[in-house]
């Protein structure tokens, strides 16, 4: 294989290990099928088609690959949830609705290296026995949609898709289905409803999960773009070798997207657990902006709980450590009360007001709540109205506790994980930066009416006695 050169200014940091992003920003690389084939593409598919589907599933299980969409569920295990003895069609959906704020990894795969995804997806479809696959792409990727559609057409014309793929007897159609700007469609059952043409309300689960009853009532596997690309890596490296790289319980590489207050924000593909937050932010990202210091980190997309940079943490052995000593892998981050999620790291420096940051997130969740179930539909606008009031100086100290209470009342009581996603930021921001919220309040505000209704109630329903 020829040596890979990257575009000037876009060279990966030496600490990086480019697998999924191998061809991102690569000199002379383009998203055409010719380029991909020339680089050795679709060979893995030909090999995979010679195997038994169960062998591929075993290989993926052996690799310990965990889903890259945010929840970190083992991919191979998810595949085995298709009921035994199933006679219905099986569907596989690629979740390319990348919409968790702070996350921007799938974008570059589908724009610059779509065939990598298609190959991974065909192999996965073959493994689970799906003959119809859907790439669900968010509407905000119009260029990627064109590229992906062309890539699918090209793959079909070369018989990587369609009937009797490469003479294996395996048939597969993959279509591109575009969303229309709704965050909730990243939730797998909402995404399924969106494909069915329904209002994309998430489905209740339990009792049924998509692997048993999904698209059109049939077993359906939904995997993230990066997860499907990682499947291709597993095929290339072999499950055992894949499992040996990176953190033991979350092997492989991770694409970390860093945004916010660092000198060099961007994407970095690193072996999971190989670097710490300190190394990521100070070395790869060049540290805080001039004259600033890091204040807070949201480690895995906007829903993950914020971490305070000056917090005193304790390592597993009891020795003191800081946020910057946490290794970048699923379990290490989880051990310190947050999550690695989708790999979107948002950094805030000491110039930032935390209530303002939370207010921005609350607006996002209030806007994106689908409105199906009560706690989320009613709770999110309430949280937004409370932080709005805090920012405008009309809140009382009690409102800080109320805000946290509202979040607690949503968390764990909703149809889908959006309930947690919207409650965690509020819970964490108040737990970690309570003083900043309280500082915006005035006790006298507790006595003031804050809405037309409250004013009218005072005027007309007030009691003289």
């Amino acid at each position, binding site marked *: 294989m020829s040596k890979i050169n990257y575009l000037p200014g876009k060279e990966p940091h030496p600490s990086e290990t480019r697998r999924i992003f191998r061809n991102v920003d690569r000199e002379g690389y383009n998203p055409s099928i010719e380029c991909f084939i020339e680089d050795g593409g679709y060979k893995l598919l030909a090999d995979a088609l010679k195997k038994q589907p169960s062998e591929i599933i075993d290989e993926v299980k052996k690799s310990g690959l965990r889903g890259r969409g945010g929840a970190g569920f083992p991919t191979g295990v998810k595949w085995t949830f298709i009921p035994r003895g199933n006679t219905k069609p099986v569907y596989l959906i690629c979740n390319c609705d990348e919409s968790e704020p702070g996350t921007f990894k799938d974008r570059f795969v589908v724009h610059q290296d779509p065939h990598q995804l298609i190959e991974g997806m065909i192999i996965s479809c073959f493994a689970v026995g799906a003959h119809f696959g859907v790439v669900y792409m968010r509407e905000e990727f119009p260029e990627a949609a064109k590229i992906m559609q062309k890539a699918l057409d090209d793959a079909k014309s070369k018989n990587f898709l369609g009937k009797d793929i490469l003479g294996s007897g395996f048939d597969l159609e993959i279509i591109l289905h575009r969303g229309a700007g709704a965050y909730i469609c990243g939730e797998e059952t909402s995404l399924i409803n969106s494909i069915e043409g329904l209002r994309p309300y998430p489905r209740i689960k*339990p009792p049924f999960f998509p692997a048993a009853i999904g698209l059109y009532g049939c077993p359906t596997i939904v995997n993230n773009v990066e997860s499907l690309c990682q499947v291709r890596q597993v095929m290339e490296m072999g499950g055992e070798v894949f499992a040996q790289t990176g953190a033991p319980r979350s092997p492989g590489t991770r694409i970390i997207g860093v945004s916010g207050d660092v000198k060099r924000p961007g994407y970095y593909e690193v072996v999971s657990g190989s670097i710490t937050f300190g190394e990521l932010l100070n070395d790869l990202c060049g540290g805080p902006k001039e004259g600033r210091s890091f204040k807070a980190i949201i480690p895995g997309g906007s829903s993950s709980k914020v971490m305070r940079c000056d917090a005193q943490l304790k390592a597993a052995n009891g020795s003191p450590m800081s946020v910057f000593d946490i290794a970048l892998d699923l379990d290490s981050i989880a051990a310190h009360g947050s999550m690695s999620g989708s790999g979107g790291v948002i950094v805030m420096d000491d110039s930032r007001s935390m209530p303002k940051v939370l207010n921005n997130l609350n607006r996002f969740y209030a806007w*994106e709540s689908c*409105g199906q*179930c009560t706690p989320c539909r*009613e709770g*999110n606008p309430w949280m937004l*109205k409370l932080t709005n009031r805090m920012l405008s100086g009309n809140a009382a100290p009690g409102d800080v506790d*109320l805000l946290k*209470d509202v979040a607690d009342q949503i968390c764990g009581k909703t*149809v889908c994980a959006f309930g947690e996603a919207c409650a965690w930021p509020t819970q964490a921001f108040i737990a970690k930066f309570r003083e900043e919220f309280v500082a915006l309040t005035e006790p006298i505000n507790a006595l003031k009416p804050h809405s037309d209704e409250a004013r009218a109630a005072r005027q007309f329903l007030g009691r003289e006695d």
Partner: protein
Amino acid sequence: MSTTSTILPKDEAAAQGELNVQINGTWHRFAPGTRIADACNTVGAHVPCFCYHPKLAIAGSCRMCLVEQGMPPRLAPGQEPSYDAQGYQPLQWMPRAIIACANTVSENMGIRTTGNITAEARRGVLEFLLSNHPLDCPICDQAGECKLQEYSSDYGSGTSRFQEEKTKKGKNIDLGPRVNLDQERCVLCHRCVRFMRDIVGEEVLGAVGRGSNCAISCYPGLKLDSNYSLNTVDLCPVGALTSKDFRFKMRVWFLKSTPSIDVNCGTGSNISIWSREQEIYRLTPRQNDQVNSCWMPDSHRLNYKYINAEERILNPTVRTDIGAPQRESTWDACLKLSAEQLQKCEASKTAIIVSARMTNEELYLVRALAKQLGIKEIASVSRKGKSDGMLISADGNPNTTGEQMIIAEKATALEGICSGIKSGRITALLALGEDITAEAGLSADNIKNLDYLLTLAHSKNGTTELADVTLPGVTFAEKYGTMINVTGRIQRLNQAIEPIGNSRDDWSILRDLIILLGSEDEKLAALKSARDLVTIMADEFAAMAGLTWGSIGNDGKAIISTGVTIPLIEREQASK
């Protein structure tokens, strides 16, 4: 439980095809597939629900039915389960509440509807639901039968911490000819949407918008005008959908509900009659899975206005001489006069037209009357139409089956009577419960051929105008009785209000007439209520053998196999 017992409860239950479920500390048994909410409610552990309805697809969206769930611990490979003294596995309680509507029971499951987790979840959901609710109970029709009100009082916190501007949505929206919508009161349970889509098969309602702006709506130009639209009002757990007919008429807590049946067609949908003092305010369907599920057609539901209408006949009227005007009389005088006049009629020239809208008991007495008078010609008016494929039967009479069992008329009996009247062969007629100028095929001129016409009716009609004697009976809401529907199910009518004015229960009019005509039947003379007639008839009709008023119950009993089915019920049973 003694330790000598070697059979574990799980095996004991399994042998009977059941599962052991612990609810609030007590073990119960349920059939597999029972929803947790239903299981809890049957043993008195109340689970509040907005979106869940046993007849509709599961939505699981209101989150009101959150309960605490415990399961036996997951065993490591090779590990043997442990059992307590009673033979149950220990329960591990989950920290997260689950919804009781979508999930079914399983062996050795534990449910807690009391305790902090459930209480907090319920309080939270109610606080959320009320945060943007207009709190306009004083002007809301649903007040008094509103789930939001009930649950708030049972599980809510009593005060609101919400001080922000409320979300504004549409109010007083004309959704269809019979239904009004208030989007601000709506809790978005989607029951109405699911009912119209899945049960009626007309997708006219849907949710629009998203987040806190979600609302139920129909599309402009497409109204909610199905003949089943008012069922959405029943389904609505809050005051979002209200019936235009009932709107602002009466506070529901002043109303008395009486279980009865619909008399507009052969289905005999089970209903509740809602009355206050002597007035009927509304009819609503009453669940009966063999007859009407939980629904009824709007056209039948709204057909109650005649009960309290001007047209009701409040006193017996008689014509003392040929050509003389009708004048009001007293019951004693009128019945005495009628008996005298009937005795003068020649039996072979007298006929009876009865109605298949009468109860079995009334028909039985009509038969006795015919026998007393020696009348051979007796017929009813049939009302054959088309079924709507849902609940409206092709038979427009509610008691054809009963009429056929009791009167057993010949198929051409009515034609014979009509032609007899036209030809002058029949000179006297008793029109009981039917307006013979309407559907029997007789004109006013034909009727003028008669020398004598006696009629039993509750409201003024073409026949009462011409009758020599009009005996004012009552409507279905004012009487007790039984009818047999098209499927052969005997069902009860219950008296919701007293007879209006001086009208009298039809059975007692017939009975008094029979006695005045010289019957010496002591049983008849001793009758206190139509209800007692069931026992008398049970001795005579094989199909009714062993029946009493009490044993029929509020759900009725299938007694005859007619081979006729109710389309909606068939569909419902097939989907199970």
